[in-house]
């Protein structure tokens, strides 16, 4: 059996089958269990290595040929696949609690399978096509059939589709640049086109306007999943580019440009978040800030790029899942998620409100929470390179902290004689509780991530050197 068959075809087929043949009650369980099994298999069975179980020898081959090109997942991909499917399981188990539609798990599994294919496809450049296809599959998740699509969804589709031609074409140009590295004009053109492609994909300032729009008009849980899944794989794709092309890795101008884009995202995201009066839009801007931190990590002039990036990526999945779940629960009561609608809800939905605030604080980089260790690591690297950059990152994170404090103030602004209630169901309470515990564990004991992260630099053989 081959690795692409296990981690691409199986989840895709399961997702497709649950979409058409399974009752919606069972889909969160099926999706969660399948993802957990796939994560455990990735952890236990090393790819391309023979394992002897009693008298039976098992070996998962690494690649499969498809239309003349190969899809390959190597030994080094194992921990990454385990992280991806582990986090996906978290999202799928949370579906029941969030009250999202039947399609979430089935389409979610298909999306994760396509995104995994984007890591596996050779040449890696073709990942742009798979990312675009995954973006199209997200559309039915964002817009239920009974709801008129807003402008955010259309903009999202346009931006993600525009990214693909830029990246494919830049890949072809980069090959030319590699052949004649002295050609400054071609280098500049290739770099610009590549930068535009990734700017569209990651939503670099000012191309992120669809994110707050979507948070306002679409289902928070589905949008949260989108904001976790697509940037995660885009970042891995971007690291692949840096690893593959020497001049991209060694160009100080490109590194500065990436850092500038990252700082702009962090600072603007944080400042805009502090001004919002809609808790969904605050989450959108927080996600933008988080993506900005990832961009900053990619632009580090250090050998710690891969470690810092993955240290940011893992807590991001948990933070967004907890935040999106809490928002979904609150949205069922307060439809618009404006401050005026959610005022005083801490007394009627205490667990959801606590989870939302903790997730927000974690994204701020609050001590003892999951977001703190990666921000500390990033800050340490940044401070050694540029104090101005560190200052603007501080401003961005301060903006998120202000947003968290404002949100908390609105939530507790209840009438004096209003009694405390517990309106979350036991499933919702359990999922949110586990999420909050997870945030504290990752914050207080970040070394639990070490077994997953330690071998990830092997994925990018040139970046960690």
């Amino acid at each position, binding site marked *: 059996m081959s690795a692409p068959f296990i981690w691409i075809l199986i989840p895709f087929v399961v997702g497709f089958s649950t979409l058409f043949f399974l009752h919606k009650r069972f889909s969160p369980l099926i999706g969660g269990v399948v993802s957990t099994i796939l994560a455990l298999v990735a952890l236990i069975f090393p790819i391309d290595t023979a394992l002897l179980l009693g008298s039976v020898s098992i070996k998962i081959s690494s690649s499969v040929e498809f239309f003349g090109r190969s899809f390959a997942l190597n030994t080094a991909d194992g921990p990454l696949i385990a992280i991806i499917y582990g986090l996906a399981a978290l999202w799928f188990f949370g579906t029941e609690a969030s009250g999202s539609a039947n399609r979430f798990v089935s389409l979610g599994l298909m999306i994760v399978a396509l995104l995994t294919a984007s890591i596996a496809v050779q040449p890696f450049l073709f990942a742009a096509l798979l990312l675009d296809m995954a973006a199209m599959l997200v559309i039915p998740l964002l817009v239920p059939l009974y709801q008129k699509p807003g402008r955010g969804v259309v903009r999202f589709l346009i931006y993600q589709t525009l990214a693909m031609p830029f990246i*494919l074409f830049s890949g072809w140009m980069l090959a030319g640049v590699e052949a004649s590295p002295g050609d400054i004009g071609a280098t500049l053109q290739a770099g610009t086109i590549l930068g535009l492609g990734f700017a569209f994909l990651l939503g670099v300032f000012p191309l992120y306007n669809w994110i707050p729009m979507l948070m306002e008009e679409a289902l928070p849980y589905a949008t949260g999943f989108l904001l976790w899944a697509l940037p995660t794989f885009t970042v891995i794709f971007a690291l692949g580019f840096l690893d593959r092309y020497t001049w991209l890795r060694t160009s100080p101008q490109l590194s500065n440009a990436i850092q500038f884009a990252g700082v702009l995202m962090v600072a603007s995201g944080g400042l805009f978040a502090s001004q919002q009066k809609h808790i969904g839009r605050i989450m959108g801007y927080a996600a933008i800030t988080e993506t900005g931190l990832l961009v900053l990590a990619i632009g580090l002039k250090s050998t710690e790029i891969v470690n810092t990036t993955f240290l940011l990526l893992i807590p991001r999945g948990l933070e967004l899942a907890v935040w999106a779940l809490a928002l979904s629960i609150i949205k069922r009561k307060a439809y618009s998620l404006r401050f005026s609608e959610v005022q005083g809800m801490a007394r009627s939905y205490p667990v959801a409100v606590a989870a939302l605030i903790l997730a927000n604080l974690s994204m701020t980089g609050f001590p003892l929470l999951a977001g703190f260790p990666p921000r500390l690591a990033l800050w340490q690297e940044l401070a050694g390179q540029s104090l101005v950059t560190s200052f603007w990152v501080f401003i961005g994170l301060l903006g998120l902290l202000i947003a968290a404090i404002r949100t908390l103030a609105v939530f507790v602004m209840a009438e004096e004689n209003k009694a405390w209630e517990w309106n979350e169901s036991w499933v919702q309470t359990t999922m949110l509780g586990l999420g909050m515990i997870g945030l504290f564990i990752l914050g207080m004991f970040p070394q639990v991530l070490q077994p997953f992260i330690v071998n990830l630099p092997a994925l990018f053989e040139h970046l960690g050197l």
Partner: protein
Amino acid sequence: MAINITSWIAVGLLLATSTVILINRDWRMSLGALALQYVAAFWLVTRHLPFVMGSAKLITGWMVVAALGMTRLGMSSAEGREEESLLPRGQWFRVALTCVVALVSAGATPRIEAVIPGLGLPVIAGSLLLIGAGLAHLGMTSDTLNAILGLLTLLTGFEILYAAIESSILVTGLLAVTNLGLGIAGSYLLLAGTLPVEMEDEA
């Protein structure tokens, strides 16, 4: 020689169809022009790709047109009219915009041919025209169907150029799936909000 003339005729057809898509407000005309656009694009794509792979692109394009057409046909005219914009939207403005796109394409074509020799002037001209027209269309609309038409036009332009530099079957297949996905996503977005809630449950 005859092939070259036919290629330039295809470029002319691309200019005409992209102008119709940009100017016209009737979805039937726009989709008809898109179907014709795929024929002209097919001819230019087959300058560099085998006939079978070009045909796959043509058939996919027509499937997209059929999907969008069938969806739009099932909607009332009021449901389809949702355009709102602060930008100038008059027909003459759009004609002027098409002229700008055509002029820019005409100016850039020989330069690109000089940088990447062997692509062929008609291929580059046709590709740039569609990319420019697609971008112009996307910049002028917030309507779902028009946005999808703009994206499809832009992608077709890119595919013509990319076919000249990448002949992988996998890429051709994935691009076809992307086009089809765009058509289906567009149909879904057109339908969303027009069906009663009960139908969502049945689906």
